[in-house]
């Protein structure tokens, strides 16, 4: 039977569309599931099949007549998988609460019921009535606080002759073996556990969810459970000692017991667990306890003072211990939420969190992930300029540099909050150097794992052969320190010092971790520019353009990385020019220098091409009144010299393969400039007329393919034709500014050719072609 059921399950699970089972089979499955003598394995299989079938038509299962709590749990799993019907969920909830309220039959345990309840309230918080919430809250408070501190007795096993005088079990112990000092918690150890101790563990396990669901403002219904004798208005002055707390309304009482439980857990986390797994649990408990305290304080601010002083002490205790680093996050969150109210100075806490933790523990991927989530949840903190968080953003990027794949999506969400006029330049450099940071972190880690004898500073005069040597070389020290900085320094001068270090780190450029980081940079750069575009002023835009030009050859030597970055930078350059066309005039010195350097065509073709395009497009009086004829002529001469260099055919030497796109954009730019300073027209025309010879020369035919040569020739011809009608040329190439922002300003090489083709057709009437 087991075999068949397993196969049936496999068939159902593997099929994409729901299979229909014979109604009789469904009934049989249900009957078998509920039959008292059924072996557990078969029950599990029936339940699994019924769940797989959900929503199941012939389901007549009901939890009402089931008294075995384990079976009730199993049947509930089937019922809760059925569908969105709130009534069904509610029915399960009702049944479970009823079972918890009353006395269970002999041998039955409540411990199978709490998880069902937890699932019910996840699916449908309104499944429970106010009264039921109070009833359960009351029980939960008791289970949390008053579970037995004596160990349970071993269950008498079947065929053995049970000793009527069973040995008295001792008290439960702490995780370090000491006798338990206070009430029972999940960190109390015993050989066997009593029913209430199981419930204690399960109650705590679902406590957060319960408080989040029902701990908030309670509804004032007339039949709200426990009629407390205390007037509600006097609640705040009631002392929270355990005698009077019995009179608190159930939810408030639960809150109090929960708070005490969390305090106890935090104290228990101070012990050294004998088993490593228990140590891991301690840390998870600590995180949970602090989080629950935070929730309690949100729901009732009278707890804030007690919690704040307690947590400040906790922080002092664990902040030097790297194994507890993850717990620092909920502590910081607590103080962010309540610190002001508690009048506690939290700056030291935040400083430590953002300075030391990322610097030391960037490689801990779970911590990195939760840290970044913390930043996401508190993103408003980064927008305050003087804030501690904002100043330390370089440190944040260490997490991303080391753990790129899981964190890139989260950084895409955080980056906008870090960017403003003050930080943009620094972040720009940081993004471009992100893979370098990864390499530097790697060197730092390897260096710190060396024995101290090998870590001494070495002779600055000796050029380092490896990165590890460089790390100890005083001359490279400041460059490493810049890369590994934890706070905002600023200034491009410091970035220059990275050049020798960047070269040395080239040996790590092919490391997978570095390459994974490099992959994130283009995405972040595009995001960077899209955000910056929204607030950048003239000065910042100009600075960025200059930096794009300068940094384009100061990049980490990973080929794909450089290509991708060039591609992004070039299109963003165009975006900046469109945003502020006047920059072409203002930065003419830098642009002249850049566009006049022929080697740029080889090293950074996309950037070169886009710069030349921008010059052709925006170097015009329509965009900036300050544009003079002299400036136009100067640009013309520079570009002409470059084009000449590029198209020179030296019969002996081989022709370097300059991108055809660069040639066409140069020709076009020259034509555009000539259209504005018409004395230049004859020079351009003459040049363009020589392009046919260039394209047809044997040296060129061997290097460029047919299509490319065709493209160059066609473009040269179109431009020449255009120049025959100077006034038309002027119109085409110097549209009014509003026209400029519409159809023409798309892709560099797209719209202009089509415009040119239209004009050419106008000039050379093809048979049958009628304009308009």
């Amino acid at each position, binding site marked *: 039977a087991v075999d068949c059921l*397993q196969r049936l399950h496999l068939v159902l699970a593997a099929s994409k569309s729901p299979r229909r089972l014979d109604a009789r089979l469904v009934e049989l499955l249900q009957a078998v599931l509920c039959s008292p003598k059924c072996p557990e394995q078969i029950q599990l299989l029936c339940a699994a099949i019924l769940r797989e079938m959900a929503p199941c038509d012939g389901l007549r299962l009901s939890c009402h007549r089931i008294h075995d709590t384990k079976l009730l749990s199993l049947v509930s799993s089937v019922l*809760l998988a059925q569908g969105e019907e709130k009534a069904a969920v509610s029915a399960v909830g009702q049944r479970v609460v009823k079972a918890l309220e009353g006395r269970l039959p002999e041998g039955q345990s409540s411990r199978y019921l709490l998880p069902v309840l937890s699932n019910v309230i996840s699916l449908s918080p309104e499944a429970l009535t106010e009264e039921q919430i109070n009833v359960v809250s009351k029980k939960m408070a008791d289970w949390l606080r008053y579970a037995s501190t004596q160990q349970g007795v071993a269950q008498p096993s079947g065929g053995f002759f049970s000793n009527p005088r069973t040995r008295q079990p001792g008290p439960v112990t702490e995780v370090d073996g000491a006798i338990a000092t206070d009430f029972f918690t999940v960190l109390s150890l015993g050989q066997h556990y009593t029913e209430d101790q199981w419930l204690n563990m399960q109650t705590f396990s679902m406590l*957060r969810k319960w408080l989040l669901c029902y701990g908030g403002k309670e509804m004032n219904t007339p039949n709200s459970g426990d009629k407390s004798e205390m007037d509600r208005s006097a609640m705040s002055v009631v002392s929270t000692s355990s005698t009077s707390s019995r009179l608190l309304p159930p939810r408030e009482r639960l809150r109090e017991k929960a708070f005490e439980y969390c305090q106890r857990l935090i104290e228990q986390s101070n012990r050294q667990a004998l088993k490593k797994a228990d140590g891991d649990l301690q840390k998870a408990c600590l995180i949970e306890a602090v989080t629950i305290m935070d929730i309690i304080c949100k729901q009732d601010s009278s707890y804030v003072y007690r919690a704040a002083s307690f947590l400040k002490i906790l922080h002092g205790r664990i902040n030097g211990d790297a194994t507890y680093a993850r717990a620092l996050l909920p502590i910081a969150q607590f103080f962010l939420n309540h610190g002001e109210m508690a009048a506690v100075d939290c700056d030291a806490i935040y400083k430590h969190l953002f300075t030391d933790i990322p610097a030391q523990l960037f490689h801990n991927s779970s911590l990195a992930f939760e840290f970044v989530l913390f930043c996401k949840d508190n993103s408003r903190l980064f927008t305050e300029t003087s804030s501690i968080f904002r100043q330390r953003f370089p440190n944040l990027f260490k997490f991303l540099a080391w753990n790129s794949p899981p964190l890139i999506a989260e950084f895409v969400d955080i980056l906008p909050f870090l960017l403003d006029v003050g930080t943009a330049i620094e972040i720009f450099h940081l993004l471009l150097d992100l893979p370098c940071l990864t390499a530097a972190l790697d060197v730092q880690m390897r260096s710190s794992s060396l024995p101290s004898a090998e870590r001494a500073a070495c002779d600055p005069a000796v050029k380092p052969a490896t990165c590890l040597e460089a790390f100890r070389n005083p001359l490279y020290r400041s460059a490493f320190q810049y890369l590994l900085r934890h706070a905002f320094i600023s200034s491009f001068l410091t970035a220059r010092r990275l050049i020798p270090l960047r070269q040395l780190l080239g040996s790590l450029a092919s490391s997978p971790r570095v390459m994974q980081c490099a992959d994130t940079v283009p995405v972040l750069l595009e995001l960077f520019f899209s955000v910056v575009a929204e607030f950048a002023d003239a000065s910042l835009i100009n600075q960025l353009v200059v930096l794009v030009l300068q940094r384009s050859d100061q990049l980490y030597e990973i080929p794909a990385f450089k290509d991708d970055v060039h591609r992004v930078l070039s299109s963003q350059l165009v975006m900046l020019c469109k945003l502020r066309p006047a920059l072409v005039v203002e930065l003419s010195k830098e642009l002249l220098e850049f566009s006049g350097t022929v080697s740029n065509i080889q090293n950074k073709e996309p950037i070169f091409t886009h710069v030349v395009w921008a010059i052709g497009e925006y170097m015009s009086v329509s965009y900036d009144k300050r544009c003079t004829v002299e400036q136009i002529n100067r640009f013309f001469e520079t570009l002409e010299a470059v084009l000449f260099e590029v198209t020179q055919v030296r019969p002996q030497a081989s022709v370097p393969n300059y991108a055809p796109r660069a040639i066409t954009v140069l020709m076009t730019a020259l034509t555009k400039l000539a259209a504005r300073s018409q004395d230049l027209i004859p020079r351009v025309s003459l040049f363009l007329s020589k392009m046919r010879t260039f394209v047809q020369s044997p040296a060129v035919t061997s290097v460029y393919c047919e299509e490319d040569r065709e493209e160059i020739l066609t473009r040269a011809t179109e431009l020449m034709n255009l120049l025959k009608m100077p006034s038309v040329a002027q119109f085409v190439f110097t549209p009014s500014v509003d026209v400029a922002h519409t159809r023409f300003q798309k892709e560099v090489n797209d719209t202009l050719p089509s415009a040119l083709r239209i004009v050419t057709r106008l000039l050379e009437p093809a048979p049958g072609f009628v304009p308009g």
Partner: protein
Amino acid sequence: GAGLRAAVPGRTPPVGPGPCRVLYARCFGPPPQGRLLRKEQLLAVARQVASHCHLQQASSGRPAALTLPEDPAPLHTAPGGLFQLPPGDPFPGRVTVTWLAATAVAFALVCEPHENLALAEVALRLLATRLMAVLRPPGPAVLLRPDAADLLLDRLLPHGQLLFLSQNFLQALERDGARRAAR
């Protein structure tokens, strides 16, 4: 509201060619958008896990295939991690996934916001270790033994509830389970 959705897909292979398969998954609530979509969502999670696993193994420079230890070692040094899936892709709400990779399979737990991720990691390691011990050789065997996986889940993650289990509680749980099985 969405119920706690904790699924444990095993999938093969962690690295190398070949598609990803969900060998076993358990959800603790009805699929809000239907059964088929639920299957696709789980497959999407599995693919993400495979991708993260592959990337992490590449970046840590570890050899791809590890030999399976004879005794069920606690998978302390197994590759693993955390990542988020944004709302709408593939689940309606934001979820966090904790994952762990063994030789031929990987395991994952899908958590809702407001869950204790440190505890989830502990729970996942525990589940994975137990499951690997029960199903030998690991991998497709679990397809025919959903009851074995269900048994473990009902014990260690009942109705999707993460439990704060000390080693002692764990032993007590397993003793109970063994006693029941012996009957």
